[in-house]
Protein backbone atom coordinates (compact mmCIF):
# COMPACT_ATOMS: atom_id res chain seq x y z
CA UNK A 1 0.00 0.00 0.00
CA UNK A 2 1.36 3.40 -0.98
CA UNK A 3 0.19 6.70 0.45
CA UNK A 4 1.26 10.15 -0.59
CA UNK A 5 2.93 11.97 2.25
CA UNK A 6 3.13 15.62 3.23
CA UNK A 7 5.77 16.06 5.97
CA UNK A 8 5.59 19.84 6.42
CA UNK A 9 8.33 22.25 7.45
CA UNK A 10 8.87 21.15 11.04
CA UNK A 11 9.25 17.44 10.35
CA UNK A 12 12.29 18.11 8.20
CA UNK A 13 13.93 20.12 10.94
CA UNK A 14 13.02 20.29 14.64
CA UNK A 15 10.62 17.35 14.66
CA UNK A 16 12.67 14.84 12.67
CA UNK A 17 11.77 12.06 15.10
CA UNK A 18 8.08 12.40 14.32
CA UNK A 19 8.92 11.78 10.65
CA UNK A 20 11.70 9.19 10.80
CA UNK A 21 9.93 6.79 13.13
CA UNK A 22 6.73 7.03 11.10
CA UNK A 23 8.51 6.04 7.89
CA UNK A 24 10.29 3.15 9.60
CA UNK A 25 7.13 1.92 11.29
CA UNK A 26 5.18 2.15 8.04
CA UNK A 27 7.76 -0.05 6.34
CA UNK A 28 7.41 -2.67 9.05
CA UNK A 29 3.61 -2.50 8.86
CA UNK A 30 3.65 -2.97 5.10
CA UNK A 31 2.90 0.46 3.71
CA UNK A 32 4.92 3.28 2.24
CA UNK A 33 4.83 7.00 2.78
CA UNK A 34 5.85 8.56 -0.51
CA UNK A 35 6.73 12.20 -0.08
CA UNK A 36 5.06 14.39 -2.70
CA UNK A 37 7.35 16.56 -4.80
CA UNK A 38 7.99 20.25 -4.25
CA UNK A 39 5.54 20.69 -1.39
CA UNK A 40 5.41 24.07 0.30
CA UNK A 41 4.70 24.99 3.93
CA UNK A 42 0.98 24.88 4.77
CA UNK A 43 1.24 28.04 6.87
CA UNK A 44 0.72 26.23 10.21
CA UNK A 45 -2.59 27.96 10.94
CA UNK A 46 -5.76 27.68 8.92
CA UNK A 47 -6.68 31.09 7.49
CA UNK A 48 -10.26 31.66 8.60
CA UNK A 49 -11.07 34.86 6.74
CA UNK A 50 -13.33 34.32 3.71
CA UNK A 51 -11.20 36.64 1.58
CA UNK A 52 -7.89 34.95 2.41
CA UNK A 53 -7.06 32.78 -0.56
CA UNK A 54 -3.37 33.17 -1.41
CA UNK A 55 -2.15 31.56 1.81
CA UNK A 56 -4.23 28.47 1.09
CA UNK A 57 -2.55 27.85 -2.26
CA UNK A 58 0.34 25.72 -0.91
CA UNK A 59 -2.23 23.32 0.57
CA UNK A 60 -4.22 23.26 -2.65
CA UNK A 61 -1.08 22.44 -4.64
CA UNK A 62 -0.28 19.52 -2.34
CA UNK A 63 -3.86 18.23 -2.41
CA UNK A 64 -3.99 18.49 -6.15
CA UNK A 65 -0.67 16.70 -6.58
CA UNK A 66 -2.08 13.81 -4.58
CA UNK A 67 -5.22 13.74 -6.64
CA UNK A 68 -3.09 13.53 -9.79
CA UNK A 69 -1.15 10.67 -8.20
CA UNK A 70 -4.42 8.93 -7.38
CA UNK A 71 -3.50 8.40 -3.77
CA UNK A 72 -4.67 9.51 -0.33
CA UNK A 73 -2.52 12.22 1.28
CA UNK A 74 -1.09 11.40 4.69
CA UNK A 75 0.11 13.92 7.27
CA UNK A 76 1.71 13.55 10.69
CA UNK A 77 1.93 17.04 12.13
CA UNK A 78 -1.33 18.13 13.76
CA UNK A 79 -1.08 21.59 12.24
CA UNK A 80 -0.49 20.37 8.67
CA UNK A 81 -3.30 17.92 9.10
CA UNK A 82 -5.66 20.62 10.34
CA UNK A 83 -4.81 23.04 7.54
CA UNK A 84 -4.92 20.48 4.72
CA UNK A 85 -8.19 18.93 5.84
CA UNK A 86 -9.91 22.31 6.17
CA UNK A 87 -8.61 23.68 2.88
CA UNK A 88 -9.72 20.43 1.27
CA UNK A 89 -13.21 21.00 2.63
CA UNK A 90 -13.21 24.56 1.31
CA UNK A 91 -12.23 23.33 -2.14
CA UNK A 92 -15.04 20.78 -2.04
CA UNK A 93 -17.78 23.09 -0.79
CA UNK A 94 -16.95 26.70 -1.57
CA UNK A 95 -17.50 27.58 -5.23
CA UNK A 96 -16.32 31.15 -4.73
CA UNK A 97 -13.04 29.92 -3.27
CA UNK A 98 -12.56 27.60 -6.24
CA UNK A 99 -13.32 30.41 -8.68
CA UNK A 100 -10.82 32.75 -7.02
CA UNK A 101 -8.18 30.04 -7.08
CA UNK A 102 -8.51 29.36 -10.78
CA UNK A 103 -8.68 33.07 -11.59
CA UNK A 104 -5.38 33.38 -9.77
CA UNK A 105 -3.77 30.38 -11.44
CA UNK A 106 -5.46 27.89 -13.76
CA UNK A 107 -3.25 25.15 -12.41
CA UNK A 108 -5.06 25.48 -9.10
CA UNK A 109 -8.27 24.01 -10.42
CA UNK A 110 -9.19 21.52 -7.72
CA UNK A 111 -12.49 20.21 -6.29
CA UNK A 112 -11.47 18.68 -3.00
CA UNK A 113 -11.30 15.11 -4.29
CA UNK A 114 -8.27 13.97 -2.31
CA UNK A 115 -8.69 11.89 0.83
CA UNK A 116 -6.65 13.50 3.62
CA UNK A 117 -5.60 11.10 6.34
CA UNK A 118 -3.64 11.49 9.51
CA UNK A 119 -1.09 8.72 10.10
CA UNK A 120 -3.20 7.64 13.08
CA UNK A 121 -6.24 7.36 10.82
CA UNK A 122 -4.20 5.18 8.48
CA UNK A 123 -3.37 2.89 11.38
CA UNK A 124 -6.97 2.78 12.59
CA UNK A 125 -8.92 2.74 9.32
CA UNK A 126 -6.61 1.34 6.64
CA UNK A 127 -4.25 -1.00 8.50
CA UNK A 128 -6.29 -1.73 11.63
CA UNK A 129 -5.09 -1.53 15.22
CA UNK A 130 -5.40 -5.33 15.42
CA UNK A 131 -2.72 -5.64 12.72
CA UNK A 132 -0.57 -3.08 14.53
CA UNK A 133 -0.95 -5.13 17.67
CA UNK A 134 0.03 -8.29 15.85
CA UNK A 135 3.21 -6.62 14.57
CA UNK A 136 4.34 -5.51 18.03
CA UNK A 137 7.48 -7.37 19.10
CA UNK A 138 8.25 -5.30 22.16
CA UNK A 139 4.92 -4.76 23.94
CA UNK A 140 5.10 -1.78 26.27
CA UNK A 141 3.60 -3.65 29.18
CA UNK A 142 3.10 -1.69 32.36
CA UNK A 143 3.68 1.73 30.80
CA UNK A 144 0.99 4.24 31.78
CA UNK A 145 0.63 6.66 28.91
CA UNK A 146 -1.60 9.68 28.46
CA UNK A 147 -2.71 10.75 24.98
CA UNK A 148 -2.34 14.48 24.49
CA UNK A 149 -4.63 15.38 21.61
CA UNK A 150 -4.50 19.17 21.88
CA UNK A 151 -6.85 21.20 19.68
CA UNK A 152 -5.99 20.86 16.05
CA UNK A 153 -6.54 17.15 15.44
CA UNK A 154 -10.08 17.23 16.76
CA UNK A 155 -11.68 20.62 16.18
CA UNK A 156 -13.87 21.68 14.54
CA UNK A 157 -15.24 18.15 14.72
CA UNK A 158 -17.56 18.62 11.75
CA UNK A 159 -14.61 19.23 9.41
CA UNK A 160 -11.83 17.23 11.03
CA UNK A 161 -14.01 14.11 11.45
CA UNK A 162 -11.01 12.57 13.19
CA UNK A 163 -12.75 11.24 16.28
CA UNK A 164 -15.35 12.32 18.84
CA UNK A 165 -14.04 15.85 19.54
CA UNK A 166 -15.02 15.79 23.21
CA UNK A 167 -14.31 12.18 24.05
CA UNK A 168 -11.75 10.82 21.61
CA UNK A 169 -10.38 7.28 21.82
CA UNK A 170 -8.12 6.85 18.79
CA UNK A 171 -4.83 7.51 20.60
CA UNK A 172 -5.93 5.45 23.62
CA UNK A 173 -6.70 2.56 21.25
CA UNK A 174 -3.29 3.08 19.66
CA UNK A 175 -1.62 2.91 23.07
CA UNK A 176 -3.52 -0.30 23.87
CA UNK A 177 -2.41 -1.85 20.59
CA UNK A 178 1.19 -1.29 21.66
CA UNK A 179 0.61 -3.20 24.87
CA UNK A 180 0.72 -0.18 27.16
CA UNK A 181 -2.02 1.17 29.42
CA UNK A 182 -3.77 4.33 28.23
CA UNK A 183 -4.59 6.89 30.90
CA UNK A 184 -7.67 8.97 30.19
CA UNK A 185 -7.67 12.48 31.67
CA UNK A 186 -9.95 15.45 31.21
CA UNK A 187 -7.49 17.97 29.81
CA UNK A 188 -6.32 15.83 26.92
CA UNK A 189 -8.09 17.89 24.29
CA UNK A 190 -7.19 21.29 25.71
CA UNK A 191 -4.77 23.76 24.14
CA UNK A 192 -1.06 24.06 25.06
CA UNK A 193 -1.03 27.76 24.25
CA UNK A 194 -0.22 27.24 20.60
CA UNK A 195 1.45 30.08 18.71
CA UNK A 196 0.89 32.45 21.61
CA UNK A 197 3.76 30.74 23.40
CA UNK A 198 6.16 32.76 21.25
CA UNK A 199 5.40 35.96 23.11
CA UNK A 200 3.37 34.84 26.13
CA UNK A 201 5.33 32.19 27.94
CA UNK A 202 3.37 32.57 31.17
CA UNK A 203 0.06 31.86 29.52
CA UNK A 204 1.41 28.79 27.83
CA UNK A 205 3.07 27.65 31.07
CA UNK A 206 -0.24 27.80 32.87
CA UNK A 207 -2.00 25.78 30.21
CA UNK A 208 0.71 23.14 29.92
CA UNK A 209 0.79 22.78 33.71
CA UNK A 210 -2.94 22.21 33.78
CA UNK A 211 -2.63 19.47 31.16
CA UNK A 212 0.40 17.76 32.72
CA UNK A 213 -0.92 17.93 36.28
CA UNK A 214 -4.25 16.48 35.28
CA UNK A 215 -2.51 13.64 33.43
CA UNK A 216 -0.33 12.85 36.45
CA UNK A 217 -3.32 13.02 38.79
CA UNK A 218 -4.98 10.34 36.68
CA UNK A 219 -1.89 8.15 36.81
CA UNK A 220 -0.04 8.94 33.60
CA UNK A 221 3.73 8.59 33.64
CA UNK A 222 4.35 9.93 30.15
CA UNK A 223 2.49 11.72 27.38
CA UNK A 224 2.45 11.24 23.63
CA UNK A 225 1.50 13.75 20.97
CA UNK A 226 1.32 14.23 17.20
CA UNK A 227 2.04 17.95 17.37
CA UNK A 228 5.54 19.51 17.38
CA UNK A 229 4.20 22.62 19.07
CA UNK A 230 2.44 20.67 21.85
CA UNK A 231 5.67 18.72 22.32
CA UNK A 232 7.74 21.89 22.53
CA UNK A 233 5.42 23.72 24.89
CA UNK A 234 4.82 20.81 27.26
CA UNK A 235 8.50 19.88 27.35
CA UNK A 236 9.54 23.43 28.03
CA UNK A 237 6.82 24.40 30.46
CA UNK A 238 5.97 21.15 32.20
CA UNK A 239 8.85 18.82 31.32
CA UNK A 240 9.66 18.49 35.02
CA UNK A 241 6.18 17.09 35.68
CA UNK A 242 6.28 14.29 33.10
CA UNK A 243 7.99 13.54 29.78
CA UNK A 244 6.32 13.92 26.38
CA UNK A 245 7.31 12.16 23.13
CA UNK A 246 5.96 11.71 19.64
CA UNK A 247 3.51 8.87 19.14
CA UNK A 248 5.63 7.59 16.26
CA UNK A 249 8.61 7.11 18.54
CA UNK A 250 6.48 4.97 20.82
CA UNK A 251 5.26 2.98 17.84
CA UNK A 252 8.82 2.36 16.62
CA UNK A 253 9.81 1.22 20.09
CA UNK A 254 6.94 -1.27 20.28
CA UNK A 255 7.73 -2.55 16.80
CA UNK A 256 11.27 -3.26 17.91
CA UNK A 257 12.82 -0.62 15.71
CA UNK A 258 15.70 0.47 17.81
CA UNK A 259 15.79 4.21 18.19
CA UNK A 260 19.38 4.90 17.23
CA UNK A 261 19.32 2.43 14.38
CA UNK A 262 16.15 3.96 13.00
CA UNK A 263 17.74 7.37 13.10
CA UNK A 264 20.98 6.22 11.48
CA UNK A 265 19.15 4.52 8.64
CA UNK A 266 16.91 7.43 7.89
Amino acid at each position, binding site marked *: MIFDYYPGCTLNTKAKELDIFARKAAEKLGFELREIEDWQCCGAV*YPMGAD*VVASKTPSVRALKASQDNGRALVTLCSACHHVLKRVNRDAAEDAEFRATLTAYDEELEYNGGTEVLHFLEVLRDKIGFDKVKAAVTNPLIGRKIGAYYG*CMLLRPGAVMAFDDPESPTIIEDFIKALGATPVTYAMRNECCGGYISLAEKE*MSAKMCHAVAEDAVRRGAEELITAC*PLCAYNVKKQAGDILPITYFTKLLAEALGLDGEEAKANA
Partner: protein
Amino acid sequence: MLNPAFETKEILLNSRTIAEKCMKCGRCSAACPSYEQMDIRPHQFVSYLMRGDVDGLLSSTTLWKCLSCFACVQRCPRGVAPAQLIESVRLAAIRQKGGDGITVEDVVGELDDEMPQQLLVAAFRKYKG
Protein backbone atom coordinates in the same frame (compact mmCIF):
# COMPACT_ATOMS: atom_id res chain seq x y z
CA MET B 1 -10.96 54.81 8.40
CA LEU B 2 -13.97 53.06 6.99
CA ASN B 3 -17.56 53.91 7.76
CA PRO B 4 -18.27 51.83 10.93
CA ALA B 5 -21.51 50.31 9.63
CA PHE B 6 -19.77 49.26 6.44
CA GLU B 7 -16.78 47.95 8.35
CA THR B 8 -19.00 45.86 10.64
CA LYS B 9 -20.69 44.34 7.63
CA GLU B 10 -17.37 43.52 6.01
CA ILE B 11 -16.07 41.90 9.18
CA LEU B 12 -19.20 39.80 9.59
CA LEU B 13 -19.06 38.69 5.96
CA ASN B 14 -15.40 37.82 6.14
CA SER B 15 -15.92 35.74 9.29
CA ARG B 16 -18.01 33.12 7.49
CA THR B 17 -20.19 32.63 10.54
CA ILE B 18 -23.67 33.85 11.39
CA ALA B 19 -23.30 35.93 14.54
CA GLU B 20 -27.05 36.70 14.65
CA LYS B 21 -27.70 33.16 15.80
CA CYS B 22 -25.99 33.86 19.14
CA MET B 23 -28.34 33.47 22.12
CA LYS B 24 -25.83 34.91 24.62
CA CYS B 25 -25.55 31.75 26.67
CA GLY B 26 -21.85 32.26 27.42
CA ARG B 27 -20.84 28.69 26.62
CA CYS B 28 -18.04 29.92 24.36
CA SER B 29 -16.52 31.97 27.16
CA ALA B 30 -16.88 29.07 29.59
CA ALA B 31 -14.88 26.89 27.20
CA CYS B 32 -12.23 29.49 26.39
CA PRO B 33 -8.77 28.84 27.88
CA SER B 34 -7.79 32.48 27.32
CA TYR B 35 -10.86 33.90 29.01
CA GLU B 36 -9.02 35.54 31.90
CA GLN B 37 -6.58 37.30 29.58
CA MET B 38 -9.20 38.87 27.36
CA ASP B 39 -10.68 42.31 27.97
CA ILE B 40 -13.66 41.41 25.76
CA ARG B 41 -14.68 37.78 26.34
CA PRO B 42 -15.83 35.59 23.44
CA HIS B 43 -19.58 35.94 24.14
CA GLN B 44 -19.16 39.69 24.60
CA PHE B 45 -17.15 39.87 21.41
CA VAL B 46 -20.15 38.55 19.50
CA SER B 47 -22.40 41.18 21.12
CA TYR B 48 -19.98 44.02 20.28
CA LEU B 49 -20.18 43.03 16.63
CA MET B 50 -23.96 42.85 16.71
CA ARG B 51 -23.95 46.40 18.11
CA GLY B 52 -21.49 47.49 15.44
CA ASP B 53 -18.88 48.58 17.99
CA VAL B 54 -15.90 47.80 15.80
CA ASP B 55 -13.65 50.46 17.32
CA GLY B 56 -13.87 48.76 20.70
CA LEU B 57 -12.94 45.45 19.13
CA LEU B 58 -10.05 46.77 17.04
CA SER B 59 -8.23 47.89 20.18
CA SER B 60 -9.20 44.84 22.23
CA THR B 61 -6.55 42.55 23.76
CA THR B 62 -8.76 39.63 22.74
CA LEU B 63 -7.40 39.81 19.18
CA TRP B 64 -3.96 38.78 20.41
CA LYS B 65 -5.00 36.39 23.18
CA CYS B 66 -7.25 34.09 21.18
CA LEU B 67 -5.39 30.84 20.53
CA SER B 68 -7.56 29.60 17.67
CA CYS B 69 -8.10 26.44 19.68
CA PHE B 70 -11.69 26.18 18.41
CA ALA B 71 -13.11 25.15 21.78
CA CYS B 72 -15.72 27.93 21.43
CA VAL B 73 -16.58 26.77 17.91
CA GLN B 74 -16.97 23.18 19.02
CA ARG B 75 -19.12 23.98 22.04
CA CYS B 76 -21.45 26.74 20.82
CA PRO B 77 -24.95 25.28 20.88
CA ARG B 78 -26.06 27.63 18.11
CA GLY B 79 -23.35 26.87 15.58
CA VAL B 80 -21.72 30.28 15.89
CA ALA B 81 -17.93 30.38 15.48
CA PRO B 82 -16.59 33.10 17.80
CA ALA B 83 -13.00 32.24 16.80
CA GLN B 84 -13.86 33.22 13.23
CA LEU B 85 -15.30 36.55 14.34
CA ILE B 86 -12.15 37.25 16.32
CA GLU B 87 -9.98 36.31 13.34
CA SER B 88 -11.99 38.55 11.07
CA VAL B 89 -11.46 41.56 13.36
CA ARG B 90 -7.82 40.60 13.80
CA LEU B 91 -7.40 40.67 10.02
CA ALA B 92 -9.04 44.10 9.90
CA ALA B 93 -6.63 45.35 12.58
CA ILE B 94 -3.59 43.89 10.83
CA ARG B 95 -4.65 45.42 7.52
CA GLN B 96 -4.80 48.88 9.03
CA LYS B 97 -1.34 50.40 9.00
CA GLY B 98 0.61 49.61 12.14
CA GLY B 99 -1.93 47.09 13.34
CA ASP B 100 0.44 44.13 13.63
CA GLY B 101 0.46 42.24 16.91
CA ILE B 102 4.23 41.81 17.06
CA THR B 103 7.37 43.17 15.39
CA VAL B 104 10.22 41.15 13.89
CA GLU B 105 12.50 42.66 16.54
CA ASP B 106 10.21 41.24 19.24
CA VAL B 107 10.61 37.79 17.76
CA VAL B 108 14.41 37.74 17.78
CA GLY B 109 14.53 37.90 21.57
CA GLU B 110 12.19 34.95 21.92
CA LEU B 111 14.05 32.39 19.81
CA ASP B 112 15.60 29.23 21.22
CA ASP B 113 17.21 26.14 19.73
CA GLU B 114 14.30 23.80 20.27
CA MET B 115 11.61 26.07 18.86
CA PRO B 116 9.70 24.35 16.06
CA GLN B 117 9.32 26.19 12.72
CA GLN B 118 5.60 25.63 13.12
CA LEU B 119 5.56 28.12 15.99
CA LEU B 120 7.30 30.88 14.05
CA VAL B 121 5.20 30.38 10.95
CA ALA B 122 1.98 30.34 12.99
CA ALA B 123 2.93 33.40 15.02
CA PHE B 124 3.77 35.43 11.92
CA ARG B 125 0.50 34.46 10.30
CA LYS B 126 -1.50 35.38 13.36
CA TYR B 127 0.25 38.53 14.48
CA LYS B 128 1.09 39.96 11.07
CA GLY B 129 -1.51 38.56 8.72
